[in-house]
Each structure stands twice: as C-alpha cells, then as structure tokens.
C-alpha cells in the first residue's frame, strides 16, 4: 500500500514520517517516532491513555490518523518536562503518589495540563468532569484530583 508522507511538529521538533493511511497518530508516535509516553489502553477513544494535544486541543491520538498530523502542532507527555526539570503537575503526582501502575498517567498529565492552561482555577467538579475521559483502574482518582487541585493552587500563587 502506498505510504503517505507527513511533515509535522511534535513537542516543537520538526518531524517527517511515512505512514500507512490506516495508521493512527498513536501508532506513529510510538512505533515510528519512538515516543512511547502515550499509551494504548482501549484503542477506541474510551480510556484517554493516548491523550495528546493537536494544535492545542486535547484529543485521543488513537482516534486521529497519522496522515491528519500534516502541518499540525502535536504535544505529548514527553514535552511536559523542560529537560530534567519536571512540570509542577509531575512533581505533585509524585508527592501525592497519584499513580500506581502508571499506564493512565501520561494521558492524565497531558489532559490536566490542558485544563490548567484553559482554567487556572478549576473547581473539583470541573477537574473531575474534564478528566472523565481518562480512566484509572488503580487509584480511585482521589489522589489524582487532589494533585491537580494542589498544582493549580501552587501555579496560581507562583504566577
């Protein structure tokens, strides 16, 4: 099958790849670009483990084709830390032990960062609704929600 040539930006790096028309952005990130932060949980847009942003909009990368990345700006969990310096959300997730197996964590970090960029002062209800598409089968969510709320408070204070 004829492969499609795609030029795009991932975490501010210019990248090019060839992909099959049926290949998802998640497949491309993991298998062609070696960015394995985004996880495949369900593969059908239900679990959020593959969350990335495309032109600043939070999406499931399993429901985006690699070919659709042409000319877009993709951001993944790998771009959240600045080198060795973790993002405040990452610090809080460690502090609160807001993870166990960690499969959902990259998607939740990407989704939570996206929320705080739009709404620096969310209510707990707003955090819970925003993250409703990110399933976690370990934590029961409580620590995740508290970590996000506390990060938001810290970031407001710092700004």
């Amino acid at each position: 099958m004829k492969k499609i040539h795609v030029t795009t930006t991932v975490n501010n790096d210019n990248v090019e790849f060839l992909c099959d028309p049926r290949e998802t952005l998640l497949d491309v990130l993991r298998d062609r670009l070696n960015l394995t932060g985004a996880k495949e949980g369900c593969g059908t847009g239900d679990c959020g483990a593959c969350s990335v942003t495309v032109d600043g909009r939070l999406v499931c990368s399993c429901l985006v084709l690699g070919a659709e990345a042409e000319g877009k700006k993709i951001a993944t969990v790998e771009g959240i830390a600045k080198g060795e310096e973790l993002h405040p959300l990452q610090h809080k997730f460690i502090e609160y032990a807001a993870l166990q197996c960690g499969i959902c964590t990259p998607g939740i970090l990407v989704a939570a960062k996206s929320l705080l960029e739009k709404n620096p002062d969310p209510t707990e209800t707003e955090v819970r609704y925003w993250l409703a598409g990110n399933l976690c089968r370990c934590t029961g969510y409580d620590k995740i929600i508290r970590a996000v709320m506390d990060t938001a408070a810290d970031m407001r204070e710092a700004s």
Partner: protein
Amino acid sequence: MQYHRPTSFNEAAALANQATGETRFLAGGTDVLVQLRADIVTPDTLIDIKSIPGVGDISQAPDGSWTIGIAVPGAEMREHIQLGKDWPGLVEAMDLIGSTQVQGRATLVGNLCNGSPAADSVPAMVAAGVELSVTGPTGSRRIAAVDVPVAPGRTSLAKGEVVSAVHVPARGKNAGDAYLRFIPRTEMDIAVVGCAINLTLDTDGTVTAARVALGAVAPTVLLVEDAANALIGSSLDEEALNRLAEAASAACNPISDKRGTVEFRTHVAGVLAKRTAKIAYARAQGENT
C-alpha cells in the same frame, strides 16, 4: 484504503461519486475511526474534509443566523460565548457527547450522519430548525436536519453527497432552547431518552411557536407536532405541561435494550419533556439558566 484530502466540497463530492466500495467522510473521526479500529467498517475510500477552507469557522450573519463549519468540534462551540447565549440547548446537547478528548474532535454533522437514534445533538438541531447545505456531484441543495436520518445508521444523502455547512436560524427575541437526556450516571454515557425543546414567546409570556424533538425513543429522531401544539397558546401552566408529556410519550416507538425498556423510555420521554420545556421557557424569558 485510499486517503484523500480535497480542498473544496466539489472535489470531495466528485471523489465520493467516483469511489467504489465503502466511502466515508472524515471530519472529527470519533465514529468513523472507532468503526475502523473495531473492524466494523473499513472504508475503501476515506475523504478527509478538514482541508477545505472555512470548515473550522463559526460565523453569524447580519440577520442573526449562524453558519457552523462542518469540522467545528464541540469544544469550539462550547467556547463560543455568543453562540452559547443564542442557542444554549444546542451547545449543551453537543457538549454532552463523550469526553473532553472526544469534544476536541466530534462534530454536529458527524453526530447527525452517524445515524444513531440516541445522538444527543440531533434532537437539539431538529428543535432549533437547523438546516444543512449538501454538495453533490450535480450541485448543491439545502435539507432540514430532521430529514437526514432515515434509519439507524442510514441517512437520506445520496452517493457523492457531502454536508458542506450547518445553518442555525437567528435566535430572535423572547425565545430559548434546551436539551436534557436521561442516563443512569452523570457523564460519559449514551442517552436512554433525549428531549430538545425550542420555544418562542410573546411579550406576555404566551408560547407562540414551539418545536419538540425526542431522541432514542424511535429508529430516528422524532419531531413531535402534537407535543408542540400542547404548548402553543399556553403560558406553560400545569395543564399544558401534562398535555406535552402525554403527547411526547404517545409519540414514542422505542426498543427495549440494556439501557432501558419500552415502558421506561416512554414514561421518561414525558417527564423529560416537561423539565426541558421549563428550562426553554425560562431562557425565553431571559433567565440565565
């Protein structure tokens, strides 16, 4: 699978018209790509219509009517303050679909053309009197949203036809819309019953025009004229609301499935119609609900 990225609707329609086998248009992909991934439908031809100029725009004409591009996702509708003031029911119905991630991609036209009887935005579009521009191999036409679904998973669109714009009427004065659905949880579920109501009042608060649409209670969305007539001429008194509920329930032709029985859906349609009407009425009176 052939992947195309046309830059005009005429080109998209021509591609679809020439294609053989399964053809799908790709905008948000929250149904098309799920079906692809789950091996339910593997298109031979996939036509990505997001490179066509204007498909991501929301614009208001001088007469107050709105045009929503076919690739505008729910998240963009939700963030559009004036659209939400004019048509809160339509925006809320769209916003109920799926997660934040799904909202980043899912579109009104996708929800309509997927053909699910339980689609949340479809009753809201029907109640609002939304029309679609459709581009086909031999030209364009305009069609009411209510006339698009013909059966579960099937639309009235012919081979080579593609929806090219969504037209929402001008809101007008003393008017409001609302959508409610019943689900057994608070988020991330499919409607057991959905109800959208769009009301126009005179200055005394008497209903002068009404549209009542029901979802998930028949093979396709229902526009229930008897239910609308129950409200017209009333000030939404208890008697009118009871007539509305009776007419809504009488129109139901649902199935029993894991989400709800025939009896439950029929009853809930009436209950939801009353609640929805009250919200639409309050909005028409200028309340910010």
